């Protein structure tokens, strides 16, 4: 894990460099999750559309 960016935390900081980096990763992870969730919504719409198409074409 790259913590080099966070090495300048003052000594009285509550989080150490690694914990601060984990916090950053967690925020990133939330962003990714949100994107995935929205993406899966689109995928579901596509599947439903396909499903309907197939019903109509038979």
């Amino acid at each position, binding site marked *: 894990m790259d913590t080099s960016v966070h090495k300048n*935390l*003052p000594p009285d*900081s*509550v*989080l150490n460099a690694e*914990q*601060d980096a*984990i*916090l*950053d990763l*967690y*925020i990133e*992870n*939330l*962003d990714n*999750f*949100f994107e995935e*969730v*929205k993406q899966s*919504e689109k995928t579901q719409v596509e599947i439903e559309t396909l499903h309907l198409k197939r019903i109509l074409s038979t």
Partner: protein
Amino acid sequence: MIKFVRSLFGLNGSSSKRAVAGASISMDLQEVAYINDSNHRLAALLNLYKSYKETLHGDKIKKVYEKTKQIHDYLISKKRVHELEIFHIRNTDNFINTFALIIEVHHRHKQIAFAYPDKEPEVTPVHALEVHATVSKTEPIHVNAGPQGELFDIAQRVKNRNKLFEVVSFPIDRQIRHNFFLLDFPVHFNRKHAVIM
């Protein structure tokens, strides 16, 4: 009840996963419970933010809260409550546990540092020396047990100090030890000393 009504119309077997547009979606009790839990987690996150507010990391914790709330709102608006629960179990719960623990430990360390500012648990700070002198001057120690007694004065002085966690110790004999029980402040004994916290 909902299940029963549904079963009357033969709807119970229909896959609840497949949400058809326009269909009314009834929330069952389990989903309501999930939403309640989710709300509690958001409240816990907000509390966590409050405890980090004054630190360097306040903004980031706030971001976590806001992004989590965004996901919460989105999934609920799409009726994907079960996914919401799984999301929280995998992410939010662990996050709250970890970062609540970190700040709790941090506060505890700060308290200990405050109790022993010089890191060295030297049991003779200034006040202690005074008390020590007072006691040893009166050799042989004669202490009146009553509230007007010398021991009471010492206790009052110790009690009124600014620092709560300072440690004071001075020699005692059995009589003083006995008398101490008549006073209402926390004092610990080892064999020859009374230690007032």
